[in-house]
């Protein structure tokens, strides 16, 4: 009788451990949270119990990207669906929206001004000094150098 009780308890313990492992090791998404609108393009995916993120603009993931640890990626503005893959399991599908940002950074490198497109859309950059206006296109992340003067540099999304 005593042995039978021990065996039952042992069975319950094993079942409990397996159930705990099943729940605890399920792949999870932590950040970005569901439905989040992100305006800062420098953000990090945070996940648990997984080594792979599947990212797509399509909820069916017909065309998807696979991201692994250490990957860096520049995403254009838009709504993205994502899930994480664990061992034999996948997480639920979540989405986030990356809002378009026009950003400029000016660095003084001594001899020249370096203007960088720090947003996530390609920009029409217009340099205005007095009556003179010069236009150029600066892609996302790209920098261009200009002579140091009192110009105004104006950046708007290209058409």
């Amino acid at each position, binding site marked *: 009788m005593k*042995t039978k009780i*021990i065996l039952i308890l*042992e069975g319950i313990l*094993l079942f409990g*451990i397996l159930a705990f*492992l099943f729940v605890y*090791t399920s792949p999870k998404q932590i950040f970005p949270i569901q439905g989040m609108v992100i*305006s*800062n*393009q*420098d*953000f*990090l995916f945070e996940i*648990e*119990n997984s080594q792979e993120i599947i990212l*797509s*603009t*399509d909820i069916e993931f*017909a*065309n998807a*990207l*696979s*991201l692994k*640890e*250490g*990957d*860096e*990626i*520049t*995403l*254009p*503005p*838009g709504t993205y669906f994502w899930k994480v893959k664990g061992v034999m399991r996948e997480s639920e599908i979540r989405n986030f929206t990356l*809002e*378009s*940002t*026009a*950003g*400029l*950074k*000016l*660095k*003084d*490198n001594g001899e020249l001004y*370096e*203007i960088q497109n*720090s*947003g996530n859309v390609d920009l029409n950059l217009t340099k205005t000094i007095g009556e003179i206006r010069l236009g150029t296109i600066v892609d996302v*992340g*790209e*920098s261009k150098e*200009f002579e*140091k003067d*009192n110009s*105004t*540099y*104006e*950046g*708007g*999304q290209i058409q």
Partner: protein
Amino acid sequence: MKNKFYLCIIGLVFGILILQSVLAIGITPARTSVDFEPGLHREVNFSILNSEHKEMSVTFSVKGELAQYITMDKEFADFSSSEESKSFSYTVDLPASFDKPGKYEGEIVALETSKNMKESGTFVGATLAVITQFHVYVPYPDEYLETELKVVSSEQGSNVLFLIPVTNRGKKDISQVDVVVDVYSPSGEKISSVSAGPESLKKLERKELSATWSANVPSGRYTANATISYNGNKIQIGKEFDVGEILLEIKEVVVKDFQLGEIAKFDVLIQNKWSHPVNNTFINILVYNAQGGILAEFKTPNQDFLPLQELKLPAYWDTAGISEGLYEGKLVLNYGEKKKAERSIQLRVADYELEVLGLTGKVVVKNKGVLNVTNVLIAVVVLLIISNIVWFVLLKKRKNKK
């Protein structure tokens, strides 16, 4: 207890800033688009980003053909260094009609000005301004397709995602839209084609077509040419994109004929391992004193690299007043339009010899590894389960013997 890791997005991510950033401003969203409605009244929100956490003032102005229909809620705003972003709004009151179909534009310009300018009324130096656009689309009488090509790529060997948003700006439906994306190698040779669609588009409808390409190709700058076909019309769009990581390797740093107290010439041998030219490359070398302060900083001239080219770049350090010893240092490689990478080094300085240590290997930015705690935990639990099963079996055998 958690197996967490982080994937860097970049966007952004442009590495470690070496140069002093003096001005920065961002605005989001970059554009708001609406389809025309007679007499439309709308309040549109936007935010100014103070990414450098600086004290600044922002002046707003409105321009463009829609300027007369746009009213700002504020014309001026101050930011403290603790304010990363602030929200503002403008109101749009559209007329009953526009003369012609097409796109009408208004622009809200946010001009960054220093607080000094506000106080003194004068400012010497450049100023930055960013624009949030308001676009109104008046439908064309027939079908009219507006499209663009976006390319999302990450590491070499993984998929490249082509996104082709298509919008019917016309009053007639488009029965079928097809997209073919041709991929060209850095040498201009067509290496692959992928397709998306077909899709139909009702009037004013927007859809996003996408296609993936498996980029099992060497690192380099590739070109995608998309052909979008609809109702007998064709639109072609091209875009360059990178596969893999632009990688420059510092092969060695040699200081010949060194004499302490004189000017030391560093010859830095760099190889472009990228199958595409990499422009505007230079190296900053920093030497630290015992307290961790910067003892010296010097750089090589800027240099453009051809594909796979290997070049020596010189840098000069005046060692007057420097003593013999081992100095900590840093080597910062700046290359391409947006890449920076750094590596810690040591400089062993003697009377007639200067040796740079710690340079083997590539200078690349990599994420730190994270200990996989969950796997360790799983292993422990599995061991416990096994030991329980063994114990269970032994108990059963003992019972059977009895």
